[in-house]
């Protein structure tokens, strides 16, 4: 994989992800909420606490975007758990980038699926369950279409890129 093509792939994927996030924010924000609440839940567990429920609220809900209920973490644990929400999506993103840098592409997908399953065990409302299952379904779809080697994946990405560029031009 030549560095130039790899950088084209990274920048193209980044721009595509950004554009999709802006256009589909009403949908994408549920994934961000899961990562946010997942951050709370993960750190609450690491602090020795028990996660009782993870809820995802609709965008009009006055309670906010989501809530994670936990107990048994103590004052310092509460502090780190409160910090973990907004740091969650960034931390998961960096962890994913590190794995990708080592070409562990499939591991990123399986780990995401594993964490979604953990969240599903403690999910506290129906909307949350729908959001987690729908996100997992997208990951499963990506796993199913994965191709043998990095070079093939790269080629598909580049082909997709040129297709969408041609499509938007007409």
């Amino acid at each position: 994989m030549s560095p130039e093509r790899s950088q084209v792939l990274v920048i193209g994927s980044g721009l595509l992800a950004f554009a999709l996030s802006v256009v589909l924010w009403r949908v994408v924000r549920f994934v961000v909420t899961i990562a946010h609440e997942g951050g709370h839940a993960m750190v609450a567990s690491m602090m020795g606490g028990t996660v009782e429920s993870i809820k995802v609220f609709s965008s009009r809900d006055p309670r906010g975007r989501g809530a994670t209920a936990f107990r048994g973490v103590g004052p310092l644990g509460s502090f780190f758990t409160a910090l973990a929400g907004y740091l969650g999506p960034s931390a998961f993103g960096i962890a994913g980038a590190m794995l990708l840098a080592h070409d562990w592409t499939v591991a990123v997908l399986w780990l995401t699926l594993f964490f979604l399953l953990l969240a599903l065990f403690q999910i506290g409302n129906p909307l949350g369950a729908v959001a987690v299952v729908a996100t997992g379904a997208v990951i499963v779809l990506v796993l199913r279409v994965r191709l043998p080697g990095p070079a093939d994946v790269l080629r598909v990405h580049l082909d997709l890129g040129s297709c969408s560029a041609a499509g938007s031009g007409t």
Partner: protein
Amino acid sequence: MIVLQRGRKQGQDTGSDAAELRKMTYLPASLWSGFFWLTTLAALVYGGGILLELIHLG
């Protein structure tokens, strides 16, 4: 982050993480909001650097 900021500006911020942290630490919620902005942008630059192979991991 934009959603947090918007909620805070509309004055409806009683249950956000920044508000929780203010209650716990007696530091203003704006400081926590700023901290989250900084860490988010730093993560974007660091993660982007890793993916663009500008930062090499050990």
